[in-house]
Each structure stands twice: as structure tokens, then as C-alpha cells.
């Protein structure tokens, strides 16, 4: 009798359990995100700059495009998905067709932000208020501030004004008349 009772009880409970249902159902769906780096430097204009010294004023004072002269300007833009720096240096010295050289520090630059990212906020531009001479060493000329500098070409737009013979004049240098060329490298680096 006891065995039969136990058997019936077990059967009923088992049936009840089998019919019972979950009161909460769950599924898990994965969501993936792939961030591919975007890093682009465009030379909008002024890919080659030519300074021509024709008179003593040029030799005495240099060619100084302060105030803006598109002949001596390079316009660049940067599009970057991450913070970035822009480095600048000269590949070598100024070399003339005759093989003669002139000092590199005759060439100076000054950079102005023209996009919505500005010096002192999203960026740090050491040459924003004063000219800096070009060297062979790699120098960060635009420094992206952390968490600020990523953006497109309307945000990161710049003008580089070039100066020749202003601080270090050509007068009394006794350089032979020639056409001297230096390659300036601009390097965009993601942080």
C-alpha cells in the first residue's frame, strides 16, 4: 500500500514538473564594433614654395609674408578618427644646383589653425605666435590635445606661412647665386 502510494505521488509530481514552464525566457545576442583607424593628411595648396631674392631689401629683410601671402603658404587639412600629431623636418639641407649648400635655418614657418579646432583648445601649436626655424630634427609642429584633436578636414585645417631670410638674413653670407632646394617632410602620426 505504501509502495503504491509513493509511486502514485512520484508520478503525479513528475508529471507536474514536466508540465511546468519557465516564467522568464532569455536569449543573448552579440553586438560587435570594429573601429578602423582613419588618418589622412591633405596638401590643399602650396605643395612647392619658391622664394626669389632679387634686390637688397630681400637680402636685408628676407621675404616675410606676414599678413598672408598665398605665394608663401601651404594649406593642409587633417582627417583623423583618433588624436594625432603633425611632425615637420627637413630631409636634408638646402642644396644648390652647383652642389653648394646654405644654412637650413634661413627657412622659418608659422602655423595658423583655420578650422574649428583651435590652438590652446583642441590643439597645441608652438609656432602659432612666433616663427620657428626648420631643422633636420623631427619636431611636432601641431600637437593634438588628448581626447580633442580627432576630427575631419573642416575641423583640422591649417595654413603654414613660410619665411626665408627674415631672422637669419642672406646678406653678407656670400652664398653663390643659385637655386637652392630643400625637401620639407610633414608626417601625420596617430596617438
Amino acid at each position, binding site marked *: 500500500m505504501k509502495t503504491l502510494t509513493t509511486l502514485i505521488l512520484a508520478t503525479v509530481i513528475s508529471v507536474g514538473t514536466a508540465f511546468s514552464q519557465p516564467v*522568464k525566457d*532569455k536569449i*543573448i545576442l552579440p*553586438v560587435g*564594433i*570594429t*573601429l*578602423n583607424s582613419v588618418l589622412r593628411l591633405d596638401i590643399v595648396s602650396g605643395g612647392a614654395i619658391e622664394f626669389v631674392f632679387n634686390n637688397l631689401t630681400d637680402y636685408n629683410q628676407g621675404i616675410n609674408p606676414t599678413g598672408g601671402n598665398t605665394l608663401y603658404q601651404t594649406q593642409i587639412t587633417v582627417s583623423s*578618427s583618433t588624436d594625432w600629431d603633425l611632425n615637420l623636418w627637413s630631409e636634408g639641407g638646402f642644396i644648390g644646383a652647383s652642389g653648394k649648400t646654405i644654412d637650413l635655418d634661413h627657412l622659418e614657418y608659422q602655423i595658423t589653425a583655420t578650422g574649428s579646432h583651435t590652438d590652446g583648445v583642441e590643439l597645441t601649436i608652438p609656432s602659432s605666435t612666433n616663427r620657428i626655424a626648420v631643422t633636420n630634427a623631427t619636431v611636432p609642429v601641431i600637437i593634438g590635445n588628448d581626447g580633442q*584633436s580627432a576630427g575631419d578636414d573642416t575641423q583640422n585645417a591649417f595654413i603654414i606661412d613660410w619665411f626665408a631670410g627674415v631672422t637669419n638674413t642672406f646678406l653678407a653670407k656670400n652664398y653663390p647665386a643659385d637655386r637652392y632646394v630643400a625637401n620639407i617632410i610633414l608626417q601625420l602620426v596617430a596617438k
Partner: protein
Amino acid sequence: MYKLPPLVLFLILTFELFGQLTTSISVNYGFGTHFNFNTMQEYQNGITHTQYTQLNLTYKHDDGMGNPVGSNWQLTVTPVSVQINGNTGTQLNLSQIQITAETVGGATINQTLTNAPIVIAQGTQTVLEENITVNITYSCGIAGSLLGETADNYLVNLEFSLEQVP
């Protein structure tokens, strides 16, 4: 021996009186999604995958007599992790992802992911077995720009849960 039938009857009635709540979720299509950010436009404007996942919900709350209880149900989403984790230890905030749930014949709810469960669909049982179709739209980088974030592969698992409203 004569005591057995009443005992069995009692047990069966007990099961009936408690009634049954059955919920189930199945994926009709779109088992998860993936966002690829390749251009500045995508970084600035974000990416939306419209109605990328379709869920089928079944909600059956029986009063024990074969009648609907008329209880309220809800579909919630809970991220399994507190951040969106990258392969190299980098992380994105959960708030980078928004989910819009459109219940066919019902309301549309848009929610931004947080650590806590968020309700993306809800309703009241009107028939014994409710069958509800929900279209899920995923957005990423819309509310907050992903500009400045580290390039990496990120992943977060989302737990969708159908239950009676507590």
C-alpha cells in the same frame, strides 16, 4: 486503498489552480549585429542597422481554467558586461549603442544601453497566448561620437529577457 483517488484528485487540482505562465523568445533573423567604422562620415554620424533583428515573443499566462490572466509583460535588454570591451583592453561606454524596438501593431521604444535592464517592449495579455513580433534596430555612435576612440574590435553581449511585469 480508498484514500488514493481523493489524494490524486487534490494534487491535480492544486496544479490546475496555480495556473501556468509560459514565455519564450525566438530569433526569426539577425542573430546579433556588427558595426564597421571605416570612414570619417561614419565616425561623425554613426551607423544604424535598421530592423536588423526580428524576435518572436510568446507569452501565455493561464489562470488554470484555460483563461488568460491579463497580466502585463515586458521585454528587457541587459548588457552582460558593464562596458563594451575591446580586444586590447580598451573599452567603450555602453551608451554608444541605442536600441529601438518596434512591436508590430504596437509602440516603438528607443533606449540607450546602460548597466541596468532597460524595457524595450511591453504590453498586456489580451488572449491566452500572445504572439508578438518585435523588430530591433541597432544604432552605434549616434548619441556620442566615436571620434578619438582607439581603433580596435569591440564586443558586448546583450541579454533579451521576456517576463511578467513584476
